[in-house]
């Protein structure tokens, strides 16, 4: 698809279906960000598919005026893999939640990442099960009191980005529902990436887990609590960039005062580093949305995509053996005439 798509507006990308999230849900702003981004991507509606699982977030495809599938709980990455492999001409997006993508669907997610299937995967992390009315999720903090954990949850949560990096992901990023510009930029980067692009979105569920990310994403807290990652730049944050991230010779990462250590001591963010070690360390800087937390693109490296390689094998086979000839196939075993 190198042709130029006709210009579109946000409205073109909005379906006629009523949006049915709770008033105030963070999902709305994510939807808006995607609908506003689409016209900028030079893509066509008919070549765009949103595949989701089950959950509040997974209702997303209904609201996009594209092809879409609201599938079953946890299976969107698998279904989207089949579609992306079958139809490399399509732009396939996966919409999932922290329960959908990391609990029941964890296996499909990590396999889609390791295979580097050409998918743009948006994980709406609200640290709760919204649709089933408020049970804790695999990203909920320890001790969380929910309907299923009246005495507090006891499971240690996943860090979705660490998991993705452990699963050989080639593109890993994080954004949040209160910053449309950052969302759009992050989604654009994810979409540009050839292969599996994984984006965690901090999303507020104002009904069952209100304010989960407030300590870091509220307007007043952002400059202190969000560490924006920029490729090729020393990692700095704070209202005046007075803080930074440094590493010691034993591989310990720490938040430092730039004034104390000097800018040269800071880690220079390198999203293209072939080895995911640095990106992984950055995902471990924060242990929950109440400490300074990096956002942006952690890793963006190239690796052949699963679909392209399958496509290549088909073409190789065809150029080697010619297009399939059924009669020849049937007589390819040892045959005899009567």
């Amino acid at each position, binding site marked *: 698809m190198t042709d130029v798509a006709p210009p579109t507006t946000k409205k073109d990308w909005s*379906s006629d279906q009523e949006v049915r999230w709770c008033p105030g849900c963070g999902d709305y702003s994510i939807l808006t960000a995607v609908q506003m981004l689409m016209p900028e991507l030079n893509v066509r509606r008919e070549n765009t598919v949103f595949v989701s699982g089950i959950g509040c977030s997974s209702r997303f495809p209904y609201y996009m005026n594209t092809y879409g599938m609201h599938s079953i709980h946890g299976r969107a990455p698998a279904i*989207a893999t089949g*579609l992306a492999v079958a139809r490399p001409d399509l732009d396939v997006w996966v919409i999932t939640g922290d329960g959908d993508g990391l609990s029941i669907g964890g*296996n499909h997610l990590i396999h889609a990442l390791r295979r580097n299937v050409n998918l743009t995967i948006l994980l709406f992390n609200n640290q709760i099960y919204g649709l089933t009315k408020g049970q804790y999720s695999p990203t909920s903090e320890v001790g969380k009191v929910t309907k299923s954990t009246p005495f507090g949850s006891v499971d240690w949560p996943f860090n979705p980005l660490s998991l993705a990096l452990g699963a050989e992901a080639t593109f890993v990023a994080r954004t949040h529902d209160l910053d449309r510009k950052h969302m759009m930029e992050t989604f654009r980067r994810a979409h540009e990436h050839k292969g599996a692009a994984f984006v965690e979105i901090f999303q507020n569920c104002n009904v069952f887990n209100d304010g989960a990310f407030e300590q870091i994403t509220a307007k007043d807290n952002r400059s202190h609590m969000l560490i924006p990652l920029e490729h090729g730049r020393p990692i700095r944050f704070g209202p005046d960039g007075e803080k930074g991230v440094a590493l010691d010779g034993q591989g310990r990462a720490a938040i430092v005062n730039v004034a104390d250590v000097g800018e040269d001591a800071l880690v220079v963010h390198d999203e293209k580093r072939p080895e995911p070690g640095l990106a992984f360390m950055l995902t471990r800087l924060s242990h929950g949305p109440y400490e300074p937390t990096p956002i942006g693109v952690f890793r963006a490296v190239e690796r052949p995509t699963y679909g392209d390689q399958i496509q290549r094998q088909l073409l190789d086979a*065809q150029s080697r053996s010619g297009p399939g000839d059924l*009669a020849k196939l*049937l007589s390819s075993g040892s*045959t005899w005439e009567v």
Partner: protein
Amino acid sequence: MTVGGNSLTDTAEHPLQTLDRVVIRFAGDSGDGMQLTGDRFTSVSALFGNDLSTLPDYPAEIRAPAGTLAGVSAFQVSIADHDILTPGDAPNVLVAMNPAALKANLKDLLSGGTILVNVDAFDERNLVKAGYEANPLTDDSLAGYTVYEVPMTSLTLEAAKPTGAKPRDAERSKNFFALGLVSWMYTRPVEDTLQWIAARFAKTPTVAESNALAFKAGYNFGETAELFDSAYEVKPTHFDPGTYTNISGNTAIAWGLVAAGQLANLPVFLGSYPITPASDILHELSKHKNFGVRTMQAEDEIAGVGAALGAAFGGHLGVTTTSGPGVVLKSETIGLAVSMELPLVIIDIQRGGPSTGLPTKTEQADLLLAVYGRHGESPLPVVAAKTPSDCFFAAIEAVRIAVKYRTPVILLSDGYLANGTEPWRLPAVEDLPEISAPFTTEPNGTDAAGNPVYLPFLRDPETLARPWAVPGTPGLEHRIGGLEKSDPTGNISYDPANHEHMVRTRAAKVAGIAKDIPPVEVDDQEGAELLVLGWGSTYGSIGAAVAAARAGGRKVAQAHLTHLSPFPANLGEVLSRYRRVIVPEMNLGQLSRMVRAEFLVDARAVSKVQGQPFKASEIQAAIDEALESLQSEARA
């Protein structure tokens, strides 16, 4: 006389007896190459023109401990000068490479049958491993059989000496010695086997040479040893003219899928996860990328069917292959396909259950699962193959129904069909059925304002199939999912009446396929009051049993189902014609249960659940019993 030419078949010094049929079982350790030996014997016999049928039987372990009962691997082949339907109830000849092979297989041998043993293997250690207290070769326990003790190991070692191979390696050629010997006994052509050995082991010339030498040594041993009274010949069958190949059910399914893709003009997409006895379909399809066939070994069964469904949404022929444990895992996704009404083919190569069960053995106990094994009302068509070569046509039929009606279809085969083989006259490609799978490319309705819109659930009034518009088609963008859909927009609907309407419509669509499938044919007999109804792989055994019963003067009708859901439109009428219906099944009575519920006919199951196909004699006994009970009822 020289070994190596067809002159070998001229066995002037021995009398040649003609047989119409023979059943041979090769049995040895898992590592002894019995499957290869059996395959090879089958191939030459096919080329020679016999009709044949095969039954491989091997343990679930890759290579169970040498010498033990658990490690025995066997391959049974029946060759005949006439049309046969089964690999035979009881072997005439047993080749036993060690004591365990003898012990495990002796009970099946025809009384008075012939045993060829590798006497070298009957040492103390192997006897103990096999659980023999005394050597059966010397304790008279084999008195009812004709036993030939052949020192296969030592003769093989001797034969292979010129190759310089180490004894440990050379010894591995002893299966070729056995093959040579049996080839002599049944006057098989040898040239083809020698060529095959050369080609197959081209990369390891020493192995090729020692196999060839062992083969020749075996052949010559038969020729020269004074042991054997005579060699036998089994004349070629009368086959319809054509090109034949020997085909297994799994290969036939794979080829059927390739063919169906071509016929429907849809690229095939297989999403699968390896599992015995289905894996070979994945293996075979993986080879045919030049047909545009995409195969994906997924992370599990759920992903396999999910990927196939995703591909189907994208306009591919989505297929997934598995066995029972995989079917249950796929059920949720199959239900989604039922709800979204997308074409999808799910292939279940049934094996012994429940749970892991007997993974390398055959069974037919997934029928009710296929028909009823999903939550909610989620009907779908079910098709079953009846012979290895029929798997080809059954696959095409499953695809035809799936794409025409936009529905998942389950195709049932089993371990017996999967690995068994039979000669197959290749169909002409132009004779294969047409499959129409048109994509919708234009809006099919208008909205309230009169604008053209796409209504994804606006059905064909005839088939009740919904349109199939694939991504990439401008203007037909739409969303589908597993929540109940409003007719015809496809939008989410919780309306009670709409739900009932959709539930009934989906059911009516599947039920309506009965109009589009052939009526069940009855192989009737004037005056028959008993119908033997079957499905799937019991076809051969039932056919053989019915033929035998008729030969014995009994009156029996036979009918066999390819379509299990919906049933052929005439089935109820057919059943009503007979006073008694029996249903031989390798389960505890699944088809019989369905037939009883549907037609209130007292169909009685004849069950065998042993991981082994029916013997014709077992079904014949059931026929006799049914006829007797009819008579005694008549007398009463």
